[in-house]
Every structure is written in structure tokens, then in C-alpha cells.
């Protein structure tokens, strides 16, 4: 599935922390996301690295539409 390949590449980031968190999430959880969650995850990948890391590490709170996916990312 090419869409998954594109998403996998966009999980390549400037920060190692995100490389580890996002690639792990992709392997373990991505298959089980529904369409809305996949869409939310894809949109999150457009965030700047530092903002995304702050979200995943719980240093700030996500907009409501991203809450479910961010919770999953935090759970690892």
C-alpha cells in the first residue's frame, strides 16, 4: 500500500525522539486505526518537529480532533 509507504517516510524526522516514537507507532498501532484516526495521524505529521514532540511527551495538549491519536502515541 503506497499510502502507508508515504506515511512511513514522513515519520522520518529531524529529531531522533520522533523517529523512534513514530516508527514504533506505525509498526504496532497503525493497522488498527480507523479512517478518521489515520487522517488525524497524517495531519499530525505536518506539524513542526518540536511541536509534535511536545504533544507526544505531554508538554502541551492537542486540539480535540487529534486527542485520540495523541493519546495512543503517548501510550506507545
Amino acid at each position: 500500500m503506497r499510502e502507508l509507504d508515504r506515511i512511513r517516510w514522513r515519520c522520518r524526522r529531524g529529531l531522533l525522539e520522533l523517529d523512534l516514537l513514530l516508527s514504533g507507532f506505525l509498526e504496532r498501532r497503525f493497522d488498527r486505526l480507523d479512517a478518521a484516526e489515520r487522517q488525524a495521524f497524517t495531519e499530525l505529521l505536518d506539524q513542526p518537529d518540536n511541536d509534535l514532540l511536545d504533544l507526544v511527551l505531554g508538554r502541551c495538549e492537542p486540539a480535540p480532533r487529534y486527542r485520540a491519536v495523541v493519546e495512543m502515541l503517548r501510550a506507545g
Partner: protein
Amino acid sequence: MALPVRTFDAVIVGGGGSGMRAALELARADLKVAVLSKVFPTRSHTVAAQGGVAASLGNIDEDNWHWHMYDTIKGSDYLGDQDAIEFMCRKANEVVYELEHFGMPFDRLAGGKIYQRPFGGHMREYGKSPVPRACAAADRTGHALLHTLYQANLKARTQFFVEWMALDLIRAQDGTVLGVTALEMETGEVMVLQAKATVFATGGAGRIFAASTNAFINTGDGLGMAARAGIPLQDLEFWQFHPTGVAGAGVLITEGVRGEGGYLLNKNGERFMERYAPNAKDLASRDVVSRAMATEIKEGRGAGKDGDCILLKLDHLGEEVISKRLPGIREIAKTFANVDPVKDPIPVVPTCHYQMGGIPTNYRGQVVVPANGNPETVVPGFYAAGECACVSVHGANRLGCNSLLDLLVFGKSAGETVIRDLRSEGKSHRSLPGDASDLALSRLARLDGQKSGERVADVGADMRRVMQLHCGVFRFPDLLTEGVRKIKEVAERAGRTEITDKSRTFNTARVEALELDNLVETAVASLVSADARKESRGSHDRADFHQRDDVNWMKHTLWYKQGSRLEYKPVHRKPLTVEPFEPKARVY
């Protein structure tokens, strides 16, 4: 097979700090510029730089470029080229003010001037006492720098090719560089990007080590391409290690943890730094702490079930101090080490952080190689800047905050030189040789046609293991010699990698195989160069030659892929305008 060709004045490979700074210089001179980047430019690894840009603005305390120059030369353990270091330190204020004008949100003093903070190794009056020299944007200096340069480039009409990977250099018969072949990931198409000037700004290859703070994209693509095209790689035995990366993950635990009173323990619960550095203890310089940790592990006192890590204890600081003074550390430790540092120590290991060596250049950003008796003959049409280049301002050891300065000064300098060279050499493109794309296409064909080959992940893992064990913080003669043999075996296996997914569009398996080709060139260069250098200097520390040897080894290493051959060239000990700084023992 004839590939589609696109033509530019300049092609820049890499969209991080140095690439975008070079691009900006060129685009503002109305040249037609293409920037290729594997990832969206603002997601380049420059984003990980937190500390700041070193510049002797003197906004808080008296400071000047002579003192900065001295610190950088001393920090380099006298392997840095003094002309390039003078050039960088003198240009620092200019590039910082320019960045300010481009819109960089530097932290400021009440009066509006740029705020500066002290940083390790930056001193006043030739090493007397610390001076605030780092210009920062909170703890997001790299992030702010990338966004500022990206916006400025859009305004100047730089053309970005995002999610493109350069494959190989194109050189004419006489060696002139005429552009690159490149892969567009989206379509899987290979194209020739022809240019009057090709600038490499591809960053470092820190992913050659098992323990690395570097992002996955740091695969030394420029180094691999240069090596395959017959360009030597310089000083790759010199890698900076950070003492406290999370074991197994690499994620950095800031030095601030030890600054606040955290300390390191071996498996016996001993605070071993007291033996290695009785005064500074856990706050000794990075190389001293890293070497002490490596020695503890090597002598069987490592912690963890495999005895291969050290424990960073901070629970005695209490939850309040940890949360208040070390924000984020608890989340990082919980997430990446599975420990809550309020209760348990964090397992850490010395972790590869920065590549001091790279593609040999002069301070104008031109790539230089030995030819006709001149060790630094310019390769026409070829330029490099940033971590992929070895100019060499960091020598055997880099000072904090000098990496962002390096990419600004030499990104700009490369841009200025390209403009000058294009003006003097006329406007037309040279025709491409018939075999322009052969190297790239043959690598792709080999990969697609490989039967019963090796898995990319397996070869990569073995490369990282060999580098970690044989070419780490502390180097032992037997391990180095055995490491050379092993890494050459790994390199051979990298020539037989096989991918099962042969599709064209967004084939990440293919990209990773191509990246491995680049990583192994850097890995072989590093091990062969380290094995040959029979002294200790900066980050290169040998158990059998424990002293710096200026008589025999104050020289730069050049490694050639062809025959894995080494040559050496002199260090530039003469600055541009001031008296040379003579080598002294490096004590802090």
C-alpha cells in the same frame, strides 16, 4: 539509457541549515537554484540543535573574535585549520546579524540587543573565564533557524525538490562536477540535475554507530557520493560522543542533569567519576566522562543485564527539583528508558553525536583534493558546507554552538564563491558525458536484480555493531585492527543487499538500501583512518598511544574508497591575518 535532464545554475543537495543558507545567497543573486531534500527542509536534523550560535557580539561581557578563535583552535586539539577558524570567528557577528534581519527570533536583552549565554569551552582572554557567547532562540535555536531560512528562500524563489534523494555525482573526464543523478521518491523516477555548481550540504553520518543521537536521515549521503566519485574523505576518525544518551535509544539526556547534581554509577553502585576526575567528577568535559564510562564497561563494571551501560542517578534530587529545573527529563526517561527518574536511575551510554570529518573543503566552500603535487587543488564545480564538509574548523573536537556558526558562515561562503565562479567562467553549461548516469543506474539495476542477497536491516545492524565495539569512545589496537577486517566484510555484504519490494513509487526499502551504501563508505573510512592514526587527539583516544603526537600526527587524514587507501596533508597552521596559535597541552 538517456535520463530526463533538468538544468540549473546551482544544485544544492540537502535542505538543512547549510544548504538553505547557501541557497539563499544564490537565489538572492538571481541564479536559478534547486535544493534537493529527502525530507521537508524544516524537518532537517539542524532542528535538533538547541544550544545556540557562537558569536563574539559582546552584548553581555566584553568579547572579541580573537578569543573565540583561540577557544576553537584549542578545542580542536590543534587539528583545526587556523585560516578557516579565523575566517569563521571573524564572520560570526555578520552572519548572526544577517539572520536577525531575515527574521530569526533570537532571545533579547531588555534593551533589545541579542541575549547571549555561556556555553562549554567558550572563554574570555584566551581561556581565563567563561564568557556569554551563545545566541539562542530559547531551546529551539535550530528550529527557528530552519524556519527563518526556509521563509527567506521562498521569498527569493529558491526551487525546492522535497522527498528527492541524490544518488551520485556526475563528473566530466577532467574531474569537473556537472551535477547529480537523483531519485524522486513519489514517482521512483531517476533524473539528471545538471548544474554549473553542485553544493553538498547533506549533513553527517552519525547513524553508522549503534548508539547515536542522530536522526535516521543522517546517513552521510554526500560522503558516499563523494567517495564513489573518487573524492577522498577527511579526518573521519574524529567523532564526538555525548556521555549521556539513553541506552538502546540514543536520545540525549542533557548535561544539565549532572549540572543539577545527578551523577553516574557503575554496577557496584560506585560513583566512579571520583576516580577519573577527582575535582570536576561528573562535570568533567564530555570526552573525559565518555572515556571513563567506556573504561568501566570494558573492565566489567557496566550495569544492566548485559553489563553494557552506566546508571545516571538523580532520584536524590527529589521530584520537585527534577520537575522544576529539568523540565522534560522525566517524560524523556519514562518514554525512552522505561524508568521514572524520580525513583530509578536512567541507563546511559556514551553516544555518537557529531562528525568532525567530511568532504575536504577550503574556507571558500570549494572541495579540494590532492593533485599535481598540490594537496588542495580545487575540484571545479563542486562545493560543500556544514557537517558533511571538513573545512576544518572543528579539527579533532568541536565546541558547542560552533556547528550552527559553521553552517551559517560556510553555507554563505560557498554561495558567494559559486556566484564569483559563475561570473568568471561564463554562463553556458558544459555538455554531459555519455556515461553521466551510468553509476547511479548500475547501482539501482544491481539492487533490483539481486538474488539471494543480504537484508538491508541485517547489514546495517552489523555495521552499527562493528563501529560501536571497534571504533567507539576509547580505542584499543587489537579491536581497531579486527574492526578494519570486519567493517570491510560488512561493506562487501552491502554490495549484495536485496529488497523484496521492487515497486517504483515511494519505495522506502529502496531508499534505505541506497542510504546503507552511503553509510558503509563512511564507516570504512572511519575505521581505517582510526586504525592508522597512532596518537590520541581530541575525540580520538587510543589505549596504546595515549598522548598527542604533534611531530608525527599534526596532519589531516584523507581516505580514498579506491583501494581503501590513506594519504595525509598538512594542517593550516597559519591564520589569515594574525599570528599562529602554537600547540599547547589541552587542559581546562
